[in-house]
């Protein structure tokens, strides 16, 4: 994880932060500001409650750990911005997809909104998740190509 190039640490710091940020946005925006979701709608089966509790705790832990990993990357000069931000998008997308499919649909933890036709909301939720994953994958692949090609931005370097 803390290898000499820090590529794993860059990715993990990003993924953890992505998961943490989505967990926060979900809790702050949808639960507390919009009141679309409920704190607990009482119809949740036990598995859903456990899954929610684990991800709630993991969201907190992930955010804090990601920031300390990030600080360590910066201090040792191994921070790779595009790898790190690719990780954020990937983590955010996967968590959003998990929330939108497993937690909302399979476990029935709660729905996105109550008293409306859900299809549009569910589709938007999960399509946003897929777009985040795709964007993250593109960034990571680019970061890998740059790393394989040696120096970043060779065109600029050759012109100079």
């Amino acid at each position, binding site marked *: 994880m*803390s290898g000499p190039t820090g590529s794993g640490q860059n990715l993990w710091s990003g993924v953890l932060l992505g998961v943490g940020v989505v967990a926060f946005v979900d809790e702050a925006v949808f639960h507390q500001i919009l009141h679309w979701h409920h*704190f*607990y709608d*009482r119809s949740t089966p036990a598995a859903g*409650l*456990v899954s*929610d*509790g*684990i991800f*709630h*705790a*993991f969201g*907190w*832990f992930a955010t*804090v*750990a990601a*920031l*300390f990993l990030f*600080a*360590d990357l910066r*201090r*040792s000069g191994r921070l790779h911005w595009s790898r790190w931000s690719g990780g954020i998008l990937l983590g955010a997308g996967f968590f959003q997809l998990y929330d939108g499919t497993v937690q909302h649909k399979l476990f029935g933890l709660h729905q996105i909104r109550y008293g409306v036709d859900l299809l549009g909301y569910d589709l938007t939720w999960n399509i946003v998740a897929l777009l985040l994953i795709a964007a993250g994958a593109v960034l990571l692949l680019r970061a890998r190509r740059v790393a394989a090609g040696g120096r970043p931005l060779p065109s600029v370097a050759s012109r100079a």
Partner: protein
Amino acid sequence: MHNHGGGISLVEVSSFGLLAAIACYVFAALRRSPRGRWPTHRILLWIAGCLVTALSVQAATANHDDFAGHALAHVGLGMLAPVLLMLSAPVRLALRSLSAVPARRLARLLRSRPVRFLTHPIPAAVLNLGGLWLVYSGGLYASMHTNGLLFVVVHTHIFVSGYLFSVSIAGVDPNPHRAPFATRAIVLSVVMAGHSILSKYLYANPPADVPAASAEAGSMVMYYGGDAASVVLVVLLCAAWYRDVGRRRGRSAASRQPSTV
């Protein structure tokens, strides 16, 4: 505990004990020592921890019917106060203040098998979270309000297990057998999850005799208050990791290039 005419109340006993604890700590901290001055922030943390404990005991005894007040008292007594007290490094202070023989005895006690067991994250977590589940979903909540002794035992357990848990996760006192970072991280996450699951469970299934509105308010206090206290532990744990990694890297860099500055 209930007011039982004539005798002294639990609040009085605990307040007296906590004042004595503050006095002992401050006395030891301000004494001249060959090892330099004891940091002021640790003194302040100890005093704050004792005050939070006193306020929590008061709140717990005052609010028999108010579940939210009770939840707040438990967050204070079982989570916030232990973290504050643990950060003031009372064992380190005791080791340097005691004369040689008792200090050695204390050090031997800390290395003993029972202390090692109780300050390992897993037993500490089981005691901590297990106690909470027993109290709130196992029916102890109702009976501890009619039985004074049970009340004292439950609250002492909440406080002591909270202290052991904070020490096992992010203790600053000397600990010759500290568990690896991964163990502490996983156990802390599991306890945070268990705490939030219990809070939501209580939201829908309150203990006997607790009205629904009071149970909802109380379980939300427990959920968010528990989060706040746990996040402090997460930050302390990750900060310890950050420090260790930095130190290790510094050491290995120094050993690789002994000739350079």
